[in-house]
């Protein structure tokens, strides 16, 4: 039970962190894709990886039994 709660806390933190990275990245891409292509080229692949990570994290979170 305690293990589940700890997992949930950690995953919540990880999902929030991933969402934060994604939202900032998308906002940046939205504002800079024309004016700063070098930066956007670095960010886009990282963003794609993050989306995949988010999908895994959410699936993981759903597996945790809820009380």
């Amino acid at each position: 039970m305690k293990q589940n709660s700890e997992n949930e806390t950690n995953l919540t933190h990880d999902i929030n962190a991933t969402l934060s990275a994604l939202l900032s990245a998308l906002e940046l891409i939205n504002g800079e894709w024309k004016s700063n292509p070098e930066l956007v080229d670095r960010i886009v692949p990282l963003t794609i990886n993050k989306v995949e990570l988010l999908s895994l994290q959410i699936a993981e979170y759903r597996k945790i039994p809820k009380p």
Partner: protein
Amino acid sequence: METKLNILLIEDDLLSRLTLKSRLEKYGEVFEAENSLIAFDLIERKKIDLAFVDLDLEEKLIGLEILKKLRSKNVHSIVLSGREDNSIIEKAYLIGCSDFLSKPFSIESIQGAILKYKNKKENILIQLQDALLTSDENLLDEIKTLKMALQGHQPLLITGESGTGKTFVAKFFHELVGQKKPFVHLNCSEVSESLIESELFGHEKGAFTGALKSKKGLLELAHDGVLFLDEIATLPISSQSKLLKAIEEKSFYPVGSEKPVSSNFRLVTATCENLRSKILNGEFREDLYFRLEGYNIHMKPLRQRGQDLKGIIEFFLKRNKRRIILTEKAMSELIKYNWPGNIRELEKVISLLQSNDKGVIDETDVTLILHKKGKNKVEEIDLEEIKLIGLPVYLERIEAAVLQKTLFENNDKVRKTMIDLKLSNNSFYRIMTNINSKSVNIVRNDEAK
């Protein structure tokens, strides 16, 4: 001039670090640390002004240790974390972080945290107190609201009589937000009802007759800066709902366009009218009022700032190169006056006194100017003439003279004139038609003489 900051960004996630770094670079030099070792090293070696700290790096909650180090170096610290546990947030604050921003955070919250740091450094209260030349306790309390507004994201509403310094405060707010950012100022009373939406939201080519090319609206031009809407009470009710939506959603549709435009602006509005009574009269939307009233500053009229008045007079006297001396009685006349036009009127009176031939100004010089200004009558009542031509014709002449004089004073701005004289469209055009049709007769009569 804005000082460049040394910013330490401690974040183990590459994507987060890259995006945040690119946002922070406009504030100064950004030093990156992807783990605690690099962070400790940079804190030792560099003179850091402020730090953004992710709590979880290569080790869970190692960020709390970094906070302690930053605290010992007196560095202003901002935590960025996805942790939702209150005990951790409390710990971070107890160690000494200034702000705890939850992930995912908005760019506005980052900007707000930086402004908070800048304010702490620059102490805006003292700056504005000096600029407004005030030691009035109530006014100083109002100024504190400005400080809160700067850190928050809600709009700022400045109320007060004409000439009390509302525009000055709005411009000061802009300086605090960032001098290099746009400051877009619109006096809503100076734009005709039919053009106001196009001014605010812009328009597409061909959106209406005369729209020969597309034009950006002021909301769009104010992106990242301050949009100051003066005389907001005069904004037509038909445009109020669109403005409300734009404030809430930070996006809007230019006239004739199907593509939304986004704009992130800080909104400052001002009015000398009582918006609550306008709401009761159905002239102002209550929902817009509640949206505008995020932070409210009321500027006191000059007649209620007795203790400041002498200092303000002396300030204006010293500002002009041609120095004059006011006798004690002259000063006392100025202090006794009730200043209906507030600081703007005082500035004008001092300027008139300074253009006087005399170098030493006594009370008669002062009363002469104040009396002339107070006596702003179009013409004296001439009972004999009224009896001769009849009251209706006399009143028509008064109407015409008042309208022409106000139009002249307002540089032919029709909407402002209608608002100043509280005239409806119909009344305005009725009087104008009278003026136009009778002017010929008047000339003929004059010629006949």
